[in-house]
């Protein structure tokens, strides 16, 4: 049986070490250095169950819920996670062409404009509940449409051809 160490509320203080790394100091005085926060549920639970991995990739602790951390610590972990997970949110679809077995999208995201191709329309575009759409391109990059019904009409009609 693994004795998992959970971090709740203010029982730990975080400091940023690197783009992806943090140090943790527990109220007991114990310290974790150079640990990397990672989501256990990168698609379905963005703020819950964040594990902290050491340099060897071993799990050192788990943050049950980011929202319960003290604001400064929460921001640090949030920033790290934002750097680690790049899932651009698609805001508008400029064009979608399905030719020769590959679907090409040209979109506007929260990180700027980009184009990408999808090899398998059926496996790489997933519609989840709440009209959330997850897309994986041919290079294994991920994109998300949080709620496709909130996009403009043209984008919806382009997307609807493939979902």
């Amino acid at each position, binding site marked *: 049986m693994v004795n998992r160490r959970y971090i709740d509320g203010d029982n730990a203080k975080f400091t940023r070490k690197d*783009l*992806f790394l943090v140090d943790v100091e527990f109220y007991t005085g114990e310290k974790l250095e150079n640990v990397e926060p990672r989501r256990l549920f*990168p698609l379905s639970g963005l703020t819950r169950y964040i594990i902290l991995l050491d340099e060897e990739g071993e799990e050192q602790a788990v943050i049950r819920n980011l929202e319960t951390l003290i604001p400064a610590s929460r921001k640090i972990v949030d920033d790290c996670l934002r*750097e*680690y*997970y*790049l*899932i*651009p949110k698609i805001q508008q679809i400029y064009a979608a062409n399905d*030719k*020769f*077995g*590959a679907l*090409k999208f040209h979109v506007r*995201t929260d*990180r*700027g*404009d*980009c184009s*990408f*191709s999808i090899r398998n*329309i*059926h496996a790489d575009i997933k519609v989840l509940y709440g009209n959330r759409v997850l897309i994986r*391109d*041919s*290079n*294994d*990059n*991920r994109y998300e449409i949080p709620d496709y019904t909130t996009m403009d009409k043209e984008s919806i009609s382009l997307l*609807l*051809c*493939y*979902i």
Partner: protein
Amino acid sequence: MEILLTNKQLNTELTAVMEEKAKNHGGKLLFIIVGDLNAKAEYEENALAISDQWLYVWNSTDKKLSYEIPIKSIKTITVKRVYGNALIRIEQKTGEMLDVFRFTYSVASLCDGAAYFITRLNEGSTLEEEYVTLKSVFEKQMLICPRCNRTLRRAGATCMHCESKGKIFSKLWKYLAPQKKLLFVSLLLSAITTSMTLLPPYITKMLVDQIIPGKDAGALKIVVLVLFCTYLLQYTIGGFRGYLLRVCGDRIVAGLRNDIYEKAQYLPMRFYDKTSTGAVINRISGDTGTLQNFMLRMTQEVIVQFFLLFGIVIIMFVMNWKLTLLSLFPVPLVVTGARIFGKKIAPFYRRIWRRWTAVSSILTDTIPGIRVVKAFANEKNTVKTFERYNGEWLKTDIKAAKILNAYPVIVSFCISCGSLLIWSIGGRQVINSATTGLTVGLLVSFLSYTSMFYGPVNFFANLSDTYQSALASIERIFDIIDAEPERNMGQGEQMERVEGKIEFKNVSFSFDRIKKVLKNVSFSIEPGDIVGIVGTTGSGKSTLINLLMRYYDEYDGEILVDGKDIRSIDMESFRGHIGYVQQEPMMFRDTVFNNIAYSNRNAHIEEVIHAADVANAHGFIARQPDAYDTLLGERGVGLSGGEKQRISIARAVLKNPSILIFDEATAAVDSETEHLIQEAIERLICGRTTLMIAHRLSTLSKANKILVVDEGEIIENGTPQELMALKGKYYKLVQIQSMSDAMSKERFE
């Protein structure tokens, strides 16, 4: 002479800046990787350039070089892959850490290549050697057609869009040519039936204008008889033509399937590493059908429909040119409608397909897994999920039904309106026939031709879509047919007898030419040796076997069998001397007998029974009601894991190989079955060179030699006693297993 490699055209000014910089530093720019993210992970084009001496990073935001680092000052360079993006991290000899270049996975392989290039240069490797490796990485990344910028099916594949139409046709002609006589006959027959379809409206005109008003009963009989004969001939010829076309189509599709299947057998394992077996099966089953339809359409329907259209228009113009122009009025509407409809309807079909796939995936999960559903009392949830997905399908299908039905109705309405126009103007001309000369018969016959006219119009309106979808199928099919087959460099070089001496000499191997899976591996095995290969998961054990089996031939170093480089031996002859027993034995949909005799089709019945005896399989086979005639289902349904394994051992026995390979043969069975299999293995390996990959070290009790593989290297090599005395990795593995066995025994007691 090294040329400047780049994954994307960069503006010439920027390239010139970097080339100038490299020149000033006394070097030459070798490659530029155009990335797609800035340091804040926002989309922006940045560039990483590497010369033979320096590394440069261009920052588009500041429009300047953000890093200029001499390669010699780099201590380590790594690619840190995170989720959806990655970074190149450099640790300088001064100890300073830098995140120099950020990018999405789109250029990750290139950046891996760049990091490897610099690491190797700093390790003392030559520039020429590393440049060649890097060049192959760049070439593999060329997934975009340089001419039309479309994504290719795989790196280096031919872009069907840019391939000349003549070339595509010449590829297809191979399959059409054997059927050319039948196709010609069928075309001739279709010309006859098409001409016949043009006859009845003309006869109708005669009936209405001359025979009925003239009350000519004799002529009526003759005309009806002529019509009867016309219909009889038309449908008989039509039926025969349909048969001929079916024969042609079947032969074309069979030829295509044979070629793809044959090619699929000889494709290298590298092809299957990248292409799922499901995709290959789809190409053999689905795409060939699409292509068959297309070829028949292009060689038959296009010609027939063209002549039909041409014939009808000529007849109509001859009858009445004014009415002809009037009847052409709805054509643009129908053509445009067909184009729009084609585009609108495709997503609906796709959506229905997706919903249906979701429904059927629940079926395939839960019906075969009904025991699990019942065991967890999950019937209600399963039904609920099924109803939810089925409901989604229903909703989508009902939605699609609207548009699916709307188009034909609208088209029919347009055509009917067109005929109303003809009725109103033509009818008026009939009323004033004294001045216009238009008769009732002519008007009726004209209307018949008008309705016939829309068949070919619709056909040509949708031809482009058929062509597009066929092009996608052609691309997928020729991706296999044109793919480079497994190289058989020693073709014809037979090996009559194999003693079983195996040598690996400085063997290094990489799947992607970047990360080495095997590093400079050298060892030697004497004939009759029983060698255990141990190591943790992913250490490279199976890769050793894959190279020995010649699934991959592109490696550095040499693998010798009886002193001969295995790449210089005929592939079939070489593999004929090796027996391979996998962890998950593959059973074919055939009888138990044929499954054993798979390794030797000419084996005598008694040889097969003997092989089953050796493999401890005869007993359970004989107990089956159909014994050796027991038909095995897909993947050996009907047999337990241990039974399947024993059949696969019997297969190896029958082959009588000089070299035997066991890849975790007893990993998935219980202790009692393991004992039976072990017994079978011991009988089989007697006198043969044997390599055994095993996690359970107890299965290596007969081994006289152990190879310990770790991170692609042989870290220990010797007899079990020597390795135990060494107290290294093998010793540790033995200790861990003994401890775990003791604990399980204790718990059991």
